[in-house]
């Protein structure tokens, strides 16, 4: 078996009043065992919706309306609740983007943590393991912190408690949705190293959603860039950082604060992402794209393979043939 996870033409919709938000539109990717697959893209482009779709944890108004999710050869797209429960935790674990949306505010951290440990452990073993997990994610005074409620932890400690809960089940595939946004660089490094070690020791695979390109460069093997619900570029990490061939990817990389001198204005991508309820004809990025030509507004570009394993969704990608990647620009 080659892939631990295959996502084929995934579509996810949310009902919003009498309209439909097409949050994920025809997304496909494969993940090998032991691989880290990065998902990046503009806020609101469908990264979390993609992850949540994989394990059936969409909000009530969301549905997977098309495509397939194959985990270890099994189609898990529309599993019943009970069957999905068996997969969640020990097979596929998830670190959610905002700890407060998933941690129970009135239950102690220790209880929430032990709940995710396997039932084969007895009470004493669970307690010991829970303390160990907290220490692994860099939380001191573990014994005391198990007695704390979520609001008694700092933002970054809550995020690390979430990570500990996801790791408690020793998942084979970890969906990590922005797992280090609340962490300073030194603790971030410790957590990324911990994840790398688990990948090695348990042969864990991982989907990493992040907006931090430094983090993506440090740990990802492959990366997909999303825009307005679709994948617009997909490549191995080296190709993406050295030779981006999609105008959106390229513009995203140009808006970093380190690229400009102090006092100079930062350069966000002009304009707004399209309305996901009424996607325009043609390329979704066209109104904001500096390379845009007539064809872009007329025809929707397909995801095209332009090099081995390098895909881009752009009619005019050849125009970018000479642009330098972020590695060269950061120096």
């Amino acid at each position, binding site marked *: 078996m080659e892939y631990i996870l295959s996502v084929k033409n995934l579509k996810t919709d949310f009902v919003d009043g009498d309209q439909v938000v097409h949050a994920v539109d025809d997304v496909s990717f494969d993940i090998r065992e032991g691989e880290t697959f990065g998902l990046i893209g503009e806020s609101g482009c469908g990264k979390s919706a993609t992850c949540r779709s994989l394990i059936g944890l969409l909000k009530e108004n969301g549905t997977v309306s098309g495509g397939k999710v194959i985990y270890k050869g099994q189609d898990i797209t529309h599993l019943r609740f009970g069957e999905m429960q068996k997969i969640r935790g020990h097979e596929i674990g998830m670190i959610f983007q905002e700890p407060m949306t998933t941690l129970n505010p009135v239950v102690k951290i220790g209880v929430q943590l032990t709940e995710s440990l396997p039932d084969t452990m007895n009470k004493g073993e669970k307690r010991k393991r829970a303390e160990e997990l907290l220490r692994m994610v860099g939380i001191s005074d573990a014994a005391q912190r198990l007695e704390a409620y979520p609001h008694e932890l700092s*933002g970054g400690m809550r995020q690390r408690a979430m990570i500990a809960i996801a790791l408690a089940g020793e998942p084979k595939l970890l969906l990590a949705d922005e797992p280090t946004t609340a962490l300073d660089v030194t603790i971030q490094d410790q957590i990324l190293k911990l994840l790398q070690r688990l990948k090695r020791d348990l042969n864990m695979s991982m989907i990493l959603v992040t907006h931090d390109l430094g983090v993506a460069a440090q740990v990802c093997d492959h990366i997909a860039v999303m825009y307005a619900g679709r994948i617009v570029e997909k490549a191995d990490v*080296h190709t993406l950082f050295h030779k981006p061939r999609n105008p959106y990817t390229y513009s995203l990389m140009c808006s970093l604060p380190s690229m400009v001198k102090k006092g100079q204005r930062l350069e966000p991508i002009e304009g707004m992402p399209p309305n996901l309820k009424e996607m325009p004809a043609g390329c979704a990025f066209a109104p904001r794209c500096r390379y845009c030509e007539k064809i872009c507004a007329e025809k929707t570009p397909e995801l095209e393979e332009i090099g081995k394993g390098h895909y881009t969704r752009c009619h005019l990608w050849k125009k970018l043939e000479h642009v330098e990647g972020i590695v060269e620009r950061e120096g």
Partner: protein
Amino acid sequence: MEENQNTLIRVRNLSTVFPIKQTIFEKIKKKPQKAVRAVSDVSLDIRKGETVGLVGESGCGKSTLARTLIRLCEPSRGTIEYEGIGDLGKAGKQELAKLHRQMQMIFQDPYSSLNPRMSIRSMFYEILSVYHLCEKKDYEKKTKEILELVGMPQEVLDRRPSAFSGGQRQRIGIARALVMNPEVLIADEPVSALDMSIQAQIINLLTDLKERLRLTMLFISHDLRVVRYISDRVVVMYLGKIMEEGETESLFQSPGHPYTNILIHAAPVMNPEIRERSYTIEGETPSPIDTPSGCLFHPRCPYATEECGKKIPELKMYRMKDGSIRKIACHFPLDREELTDAD
């Protein structure tokens, strides 16, 4: 300490501690009650119109300091004075109401700071009406305007907070703070969930407000590139205390405290060929309950000597090699020239 005409917020010896609940066993045994020392003896001046960046390890007390400044946490010691309001400890209801109007906070955790049952429209209309920010007929226009400034689409007004992405919720939090036209903004990780492009847009927006309205800001962030870009001055905290404080560029170019030095060099590089970071911190995360003796950083400091474990270094002023003045709490600061008359 130097006095400044323009000081807007004056913090002196501020401490905020959270006592840990005791078990019955501990109570019977009459064990001393322990506490998390989240903020410990912090003194700080924030001047009108300046942006102060606040950085430090996760859990070191940044949010607690911010929350104490706007009285969402009770300080256990020390004073906070505001120009025009006076000592917050003695402030009455009216003064506190005035404070809450002038000073807005963007919370680190947008989800828990938004009312889940209220649509975005009702939330903004309520603020606009309670604070008389504009006429009723302009509510919709004003709401759309502020949402556009933070890059939010317009068709979302009737959604509730749960129907947004993480970064969209964060921007709703920013818009809510800015719609009040605050004089002081405490921004606790305001761009942590945003992609680079929207981060750039928000930072440009804050820079404009700073220039046009002389907005004063306390800016907490783990992203040191952003802190370097936006702040005039930077304060570095570790385990509840200030370790270093100084002018941004100088501090980034020649950090004086060993912890600052590691922090600003430990960011990942944007190069997939370089996967190891050259600077990291070894050793267990220290406890804010049983804090280390002497210098708080000594168990992990690469330069620690025996003295460091025994004697607490005070936050003192130094003249750095580049001529700037810096406050550093370390027995052996890096890159300094001579001691100026401290305090």
